[in-house]
């Protein structure tokens, strides 16, 4: 990702006469990397053999050596090549067509006359014929990223802003849900009677799709901004609540015994013993919440028309810009990966070994 970004920055600064080439240029760093990892793996054959061995799951007694990145890069390259060739469309061939037919086609907008006098398929119509190839998507990404922080109109904000809106909307809903779910979960986890009293409600509310709440939320709060956040909240609150209650209730009794023998205050007991003790379970719940909140935020933006990456995917569909739709999907994926890796770093801090 980094190298691609670097390539883009350098490309945007490059003179305009190279605009037709950048998509090819951008592939080059990736190819370099693949070549390097090939060299490291000691050539195609050895690399493939190692790759095949690893893909087998290491069932043999031998040690699993080799670079998994090589396999990933190989799969990526194969996928991109396949994508490219299967979506490749033939250039316009005027042989066998009369001048009259050509003029009719031009009139219909199927073809355009190029400055050199030859005919070519109309690029505007090409956009919606079949699936766009990787080069078209890269080109789309390049133009979008070049204007990442440009606001062209009320509903036409740069991709950087859209990501920012989605992440902040997601963060607000997720954090609020986590705080409330953990506090409630601790209370339920410490009190078996309350836990059993609340459990039927949790069990009924948990499987409801957060999007199902949306009309009711929209009707109640009367504001799509808050509704989107509340949808994220609804998606994130139940898994954390249920697992926190479970984690706290299954905390080893001895830890609580020690806490009560050394007479910890309820607050110290909470943040020195209960929360760190249940932290691994709570983090598992947060991870489930995190995933479902991330899944919920995209359709919430689509349905509510709130600016964000989910909205981008829908608006590009309305524009019939399939390359844009694919680009939006990729952005959603990248945002998810970045948030998830940040979350994993956080989770690593609080887990412990028994």
């Amino acid at each position, binding site marked *: 990702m980094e190298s691609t970004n670097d390539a883009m920055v350098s490309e945007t600064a490059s003179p305009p006469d190279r605009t037709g080439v950048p998509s090819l240029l951008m592939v080059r760093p990736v190819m370099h990397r693949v070549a390097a990892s090939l060299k490291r793996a000691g050539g195609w054959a050895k690399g493939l053999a190692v790759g095949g061995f690893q893909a087998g799951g290491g069932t043999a007694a031998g040690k699993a050596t080799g670079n998994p990145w090589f396999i990933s890069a190989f799969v990526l390259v194969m996928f991109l090549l396949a994508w490219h060739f299967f979506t490749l469309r033939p250039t316009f061939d005027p042989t066998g067509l009369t001048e009259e037919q050509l003029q009719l086609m031009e009139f219909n907008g199927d073809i355009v006359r190029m400055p050199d006098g030859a005919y070519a398929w109309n690029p505007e119509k090409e956009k919606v014929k079949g699936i766009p190839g990787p080069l078209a998507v890269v080109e789309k990404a390049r133009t979008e990223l070049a204007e990442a922080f440009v606001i062209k109109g009320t509903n036409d904000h740069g991709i950087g802003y859209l990501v920012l809106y989605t992440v902040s909307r997601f963060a607000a809903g997720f954090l609020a849900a986590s705080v409330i779910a953990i506090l409630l979960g601790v209370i339920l986890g410490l009190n078996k009677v309350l836990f059993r009293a609340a459990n039927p409600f949790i069990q009924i509310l948990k499987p409801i799709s957060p999007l199902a709440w949306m009309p009711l939320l929209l009707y109640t709060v009367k504001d799509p901004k808050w509704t989107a956040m509340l949808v994220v909240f609804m998606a994130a609150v139940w898994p954390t609540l249920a697992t926190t209650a479970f984690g706290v209730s299954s905390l080893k009794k001895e830890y609580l015994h020690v806490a009560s*023998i050394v007479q910890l205050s309820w607050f110290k007991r909470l943040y020195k013993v209960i929360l760190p003790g249940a932290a691994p379970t709570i983090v598992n719940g947060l991870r489930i919440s995190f995933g479902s909140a991330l899944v919920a935020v995209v359709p919430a933006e689509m349905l509510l028309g709130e600016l964000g990456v989910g909205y981008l995917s829908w608006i590009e569909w309305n524009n019939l810009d399939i390359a844009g739709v694919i680009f939006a999907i990729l952005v959603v994926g990248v945002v998810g990966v970045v948030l998830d890796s940040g979350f994993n770093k956080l989770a690593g801090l609080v887990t412990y070994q028994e």
Partner: protein
Amino acid sequence: MAFLQIDHVSKFFPNPSGAGEVCIFKDATIKIDKGEFVTVIGHSGCGKSTLLNIIAGLETPSEGGVILNGREASGPGLDRMVVFQNFALMPWMTVFENIALAVRSAYPDWTAAQVSAHVTRYIALVGLKGAENKRPAALSGGMKQRVGLARAFSIEPKVLLLDEPFAQIDALTRGVIQEELIQMWNTSRNTVFMVTHDVDEAILLSDRILLMTNGPEARIAEMVNVSIARPRSRETIIDHPRYYKIRNHIIHFLVRHAKHGGHDSASEHRPDSADPVVVNFEEETVAAG
């Protein structure tokens, strides 16, 4: 009045198969003097750990009560520290933090430097110098229980409650830690109440050994005075003339109760009295009271 008195304590649990209650043990009455080391031996399920938890205040007795230093001790407190069978060290804290958690609570007025010095002293006392910043997962069972002992001794409790403290430690290490326990106890002289399965351990460590019949309705049937002079060590104690007499007596008791369960107790003891039969092994004579 004894320093620690367990007064006619009974415990009932709700019957798992339905209505009514099951009596775990009945009318446990124990008087322990200050600085005494008293051990309870009995088969699994006789409620000896429950009895220890009642003294610790972690469980409530169904009948009776615990009196410490003239006051009823209800609920857990820093004056009765437990050493747990499974160590009960917080796995997310280092060795230092585990002990410091207890020390800070016991001496809330101390500065951080005082706490640190105190904790370091007790870590050194159990021979864990250098392991201060390790987490329990990185320690062996023996080392974990050394931390448990350091934590218990560090808050200088009036009563030390040892709940099968060496049961999960391998036999070789067990002996070493038992002697470390003796040394620490020699200087601190806390009152100790221990629960164990291990007859040799009980004889090595205790002043008196209480023998419990099997549950349900277990009772403290006998009290054996360990009349072997201190200091004791594992090597020399087995050569003592009374060692095997005491040991055989206890093992006979345990085997007898393993065969018949707890139901032959009525034939041996006066059912109206909660006081156990006192067994002495003084001057080569056996005097059953």
